[in-house]
């Protein structure tokens, strides 16, 4: 097994607010190998976006990375100076956002933005950057690349903007792409197209992707590994087959039961009792215990061990992934 592209160990990120300390991440372990497509699944407050921001070191006061290590291709990201980290962002690891308008400046044409950013991140002259831009626009199946290059962001539809975002990100030639809900705001037919394109390009370029989403359908179609997050921890990690066929953690199981499957006729709507805890005051012991149908007395006091994030494992005192 080749060296992992991304390795996160014991990551703890907290925010010091006027109301108290919000423990957004409480000890996260995760490994992303070369060419792997890892899905980070969770609901609001689970910590999935904070994980992405921590990797890119975009956490600003009052937040801070309190503990742990993040290694990218063997390089310790947390030990870098902010200038060095700036180089890393864009060259080695890049991010695609839910709202493509975040990464596209409305006052510049697509051409000037792509050329400038690709040229800067890959250290190549403008002409070469434009070639690269055009190549990747072709790769993402953009109907009229030259016309798109001449356009301004507001002239493009949501799906096209997201494709430009992807092309631009790929143009940086990173080792790892972090995509934070990149297709959530898109129509379902557009989402399908974007996902297909993304899949093709990733496999061609042998890139690693960390795909953050709350949509389990997208995860099943796109990812090969899955990390399920709840209350600032990864509660289960495994291959996509492990997670869907042999879900171990009660939260994973419950979550799978609440989501409707379009290929199945209507069933009784299943619900997870209770609500997601606020990270200002997470429950004692296992964070899921107040809502867990299988909770035992010890779950209230003992915190289960964190998963290693590299093989099928659940962070649970009652259930074990080797059961099945």
């Amino acid at each position, binding site marked *: 097994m080749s060296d992992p592209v991304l390795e996160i160990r014991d990551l703890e990120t907290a925010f010091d607010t006027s109301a108290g300390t919000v423990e957004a991440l409480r000890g996260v372990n995760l490994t992303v190998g070369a060419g792997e497509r890892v899905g980070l699944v969770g609901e*609001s407050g689970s910590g999935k976006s904070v994980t992405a921001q921590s990797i890119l070191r975009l956490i600003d006061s009052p937040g801070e990375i309190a503990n742990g290590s993040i290694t990218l291709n063997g390089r310790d990201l947390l030990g870098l100076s902010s200038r060095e980290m700036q180089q890393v962002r864009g060259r080695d690891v890049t991010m695609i956002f839910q709202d493509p308008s975040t990464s596209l400046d409305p006052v510049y044409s697509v051409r000037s933005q792509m050329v400038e950013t690709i040229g800067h991140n890959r250290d190549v002259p403008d002409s070469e950057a434009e070639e690269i831009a055009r190549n990747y626009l072709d790769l993402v199946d953009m109907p009229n690349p030259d016309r798109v290059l001449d356009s301004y962001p507001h002239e493009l539809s949501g799906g096209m903007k997201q494709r430009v975002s992807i092309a631009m990100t790929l143009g940086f030639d990173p080792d790892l792409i972090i995509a934070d809900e990149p297709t959530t705001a898109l129509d379902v037919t557009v989402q*399908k197209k974007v996902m297909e394109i993304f899949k093709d390009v990733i496999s061609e370029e042998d890139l690693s992707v960390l795909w953050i989403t709350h949509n389990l359908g997208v995860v*099943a179609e796109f990812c090969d590994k899955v990390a399920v997050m709840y209350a600032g921890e990864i509660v289960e990690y495994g291959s996509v087959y492990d997670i869907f066929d042999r879900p171990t953690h009660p939260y994973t199981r419950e979550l799978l*039961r609440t*989501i409707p499957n379009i*290929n199945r006729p*209507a069933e009784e709507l299943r*619900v997870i009792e209770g609500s997601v805890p606020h990270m200002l005051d997470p429950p004692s012991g296992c964070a899921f215990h107040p809502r867990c149908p299988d909770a035992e007395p010890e779950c209230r006091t003992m915190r289960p061990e964190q998963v290693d994030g590299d093989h099928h494992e659940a962070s649970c005192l009652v259930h074990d992934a080797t059961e099945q």
Partner: protein
Amino acid sequence: MSRNDDSLASEAPAQPLLKVRGLQKHYPIKEGILRRQTGTVRAVDGVDLDVRSGDIHAIVGESGCGKSTLLETLLGLEDPTSGTVAFEGTDLSSLSAQQQRQLKSEIQIVFQNPESSLDPRDTIGQIIAEPLALHTDATNRQIDARVVSLLDDVGLGPDYYGRYPHELSGGQQQRVAIARAISLNPTLILLDEPTSALDVSVQSKTLKLLGEIKDEYDLTYVMVTHDLSVVRQFATDVSVMYLGNVIETAPVEALFESPKHPYTKALISAVPVPDPHYDSQNDITLPGTVPEPSDPPSGCRFHPRCPVAAEECSEAFPEFEAHGDTHVRCIRVAEAESLGPVAQDNRSESPSATHTTPEDD
């Protein structure tokens, strides 16, 4: 099955609660210094709809199909450009302003974004009480009692009365919006993407609540959504919209087990399936993008992107044809039959089947 009157319902013994015929809502495009009209956005361009009492009628479609505009027109927030909307047999445009105001107590709405649908400066109690204070002569004490009872109906305690919207979670805010919508004991509730802005596990909770409220209050729902899996789970009937028209309408199982229109098939196959074993080989991927509502293609609006389009498709706008309980605007239904995955064949054993635990709710 033939249609005896112009009803779109398969069995039509009683008059539909809501009957929409030929509804159009156009917006002029004005450009230049003199604001001259250069074109028209045909947001809703001829919609027919039948909603029976007790139905949960879902309207699905993607951006630009006009579903939100349709909802606003049904609610009376927008005046239609042409066409009729009949509620309980009465044509809405024939009503006086006074009568239209009274109609607010019969047709209500729940919006997509729970946070922005509640006035941040009002308490929950004030928000729910507002329609009651406006439309009834009840005393403050009586209104408060009703508010507390409504809060209970949506699963919130009386202590929520004095709280502010920002103190509540998205799911709770949506409950407040629902409580407000049912406060006047309406007949019909329009739901505009009621769960899209909510977390996955909260979505199912909210839908469950909507189901319970519907039974308890004897309501009818018209629900606009883009989430087809929710539709299959929750709705009784479905209308699929594309570029301002309803292109297929059917009872829910008929739509999913045997969709007729190529666009419907593409839409269904585009929904990601939460099952890694699912083979997406037969899925339909549509070329191109949705055209501008101000410049729709000739004939069948879908023909430029349709995998089985023929020449005739660009010439005439197709009328509704009945295929069993389904009504579809398409002349190429037979050719479309072979498109896409067949629903039954790809239904594999999902985890929920193999991991049912003994306790049920």
